[in-house]
């Protein structure tokens, strides 16, 4: 009997997913850590956000990064001319669902882009996931457990076969990776950052990158959520000034209300297990993090006020792989089936809302610019004197001028597999979109002017 138990032990242990660990008391938070590196021009803040959309989004984002890598960026740092490229200037990289894979891979393999192309973009991930269910054979046994789901298995596949067993602690300190998911019970955005792991009393650095991307792409109905364990200490989340002040603002400010609601929910120690699904349920373009960053004490807001190193360029770059397939439902009398309606409900309102967020980002950028215009410089505003008009750059299929190319791109499927013809289509359009983006052209011109006239 004992022998049988010992033989089954590895399988029984394997039936539980790899949960997050409690926070180490010696843990040093990344949040306040300076995000910098040798080839970083500290006078710019570059935030790039990749939307969801399966392999379509991952490939489009990756090809945009390839194009940015070709754009020469030179600047003077400590009296030395640094020859770099625009992609190396990214400070924050945000990804949702398919976009989260490209964002994570960029942090791991910026100098060997072929790795991600081979392991993800050019691969039929859907087929590989099905094969992984059957081989190794104990994977099927694990799936019999109620606490181990197909999403856990997908997370493990990504961990082993895409991210080379890397954990959050293996990420470089720049760019800072922001993987989005949705907290199912509260409907709040949950990022795989230490700030959010603090809500669970948990340590981010020992967590795997694979399950984080699995959560970010766990589309409801098709895939189960990823579960994280809470180790939070009672009342610990209610002591901070930010919570107290948000409570005071929560009647007039709905965002403050949701912030308090989320903290109170996480602080309820009977909520021991938290479940996370596709980040696209609340924000399919990764732009909420930009809006949060611009609000009081957000990372962009603080950087704008950091006058020991004056900010010259604020770059908000959005890669939107949103598609809009030709709809066939109105050609038939029969109403769409329930599963189709679920898909409509889960995607269309969010696509519209994500578009509104982009408009809000541009309006805020304009407001900042108005505040800091040179005609208004006084002693108090001289801290913004170097700031140029913020660059709000958007790469989207909408901008393709050629009708047939645009239609073809907007009809690309949302899946974890694209044919080589479909990938070639993306490889054709992305350089054109990058070349024709007016805000990006303005940025490239000022980068060169900065260097020439410095």
């Amino acid at each position: 009997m004992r022998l049988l138990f010992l033989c089954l032990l590895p399988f029984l242990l394997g039936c539980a997913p790899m949960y997050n660990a409690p926070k180490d008391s010696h843990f040093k938070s990344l949040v306040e850590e300076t995000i910098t590196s040798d080839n970083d021009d500290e006078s710019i803040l570059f935030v790039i956000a990749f939307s969801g959309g399966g392999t379509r989004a991952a490939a489009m984002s990756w090809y945009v990064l390839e194009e940015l890598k070709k754009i020469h960026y030179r600047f003077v740092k400590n009296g030395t001319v640094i020859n770099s490229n625009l992609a190396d200037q990214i400070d924050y990289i945000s990804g949702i669902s398919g976009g989260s894979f490209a964002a994570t891979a960029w942090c791991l393999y910026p100098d060997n882009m072929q790795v991600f192309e081979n392991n993800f973009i050019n691969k039929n991930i859907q087929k590989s996931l099905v094969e992984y269910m059957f081989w190794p054979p104990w994977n099927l046994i694990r799936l019999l457990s109620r606490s181990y789901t197909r999403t856990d298995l997908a997370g493990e596949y990504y961990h082993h076969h895409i991210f080379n067993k890397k954990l959050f602690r293996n990420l470089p300190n720049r760019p800072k990776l922001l993987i989005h998911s949705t907290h199912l019970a509260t409907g709040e955005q949950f990022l795989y950052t230490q700030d959010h792991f603090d809500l669970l009393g948990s340590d981010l650095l020992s967590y795997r990158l694979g399950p984080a991307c699995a959560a970010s792409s766990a589309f409801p109905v098709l895939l189960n959520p990823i579960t994280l364990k809470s180790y939070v200490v009672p009342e610990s989340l209610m002591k901070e000034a930010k919570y107290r002040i948000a409570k005071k603002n929560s009647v007039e400010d709905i965002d403050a209300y949701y912030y308090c609601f989320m903290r109170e929910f996480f602080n309820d120690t009977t909520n021991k297990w938290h479940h996370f699904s596709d980040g696209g349920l609340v924000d399919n373009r990764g732009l909420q993090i930009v809006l949060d960053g611009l609000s009081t004490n957000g990372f962009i807001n603080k950087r704008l006020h950091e006058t020991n190193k004056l900010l010259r360029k604020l770059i908000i770059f959005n890669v939107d792989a949103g598609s809009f397939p030709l709809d066939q439902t109105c050609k038939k009398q029969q109403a769409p089936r329930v599963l189709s309606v679920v898909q409509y409900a889960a995607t269309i309102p969010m696509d519209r809302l994500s578009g509104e967020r982009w408009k809000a980002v541009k309006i805020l950028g304009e407001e900042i610019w108005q505040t800091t215009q040179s005609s208004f410089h006084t002693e108090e505003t001289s801290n913004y004197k170097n700031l140029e008009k913020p660059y709000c750059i958007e790469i989207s299929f909408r901008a393709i001028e050629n009708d047939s190319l645009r239609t073809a791109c907007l009809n690309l499927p949302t899946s974890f597999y694209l044919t080589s013809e479909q990938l070639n289509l993306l490889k054709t359009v992305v350089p054109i979109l990058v070349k024709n983006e007016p805000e990006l052209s303005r940025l490239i011109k000022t980068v060169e002017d900065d260097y020439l006239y410095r």
Partner: protein
Amino acid sequence: MQFLKVKLNKPVKKKVSVLINGEKNGYVNELLMLDEGWIEVSVDLPEAKTKEIKLKNTTRQKPMEVVI
């Protein structure tokens, strides 16, 4: 967007950080751009007082001034 300027009642020679809701954000005597609503303001000096203020109806030309 709202505007705030924090001043010291006893000026000091060094550059002093402002604390908004307990977090360092900007410096004394500089224009800060923040959201509308209540905030807790202090400065990064020993025994500095903390004030709760409501930011509303400010402009970049007429920011709210708080003396700590």
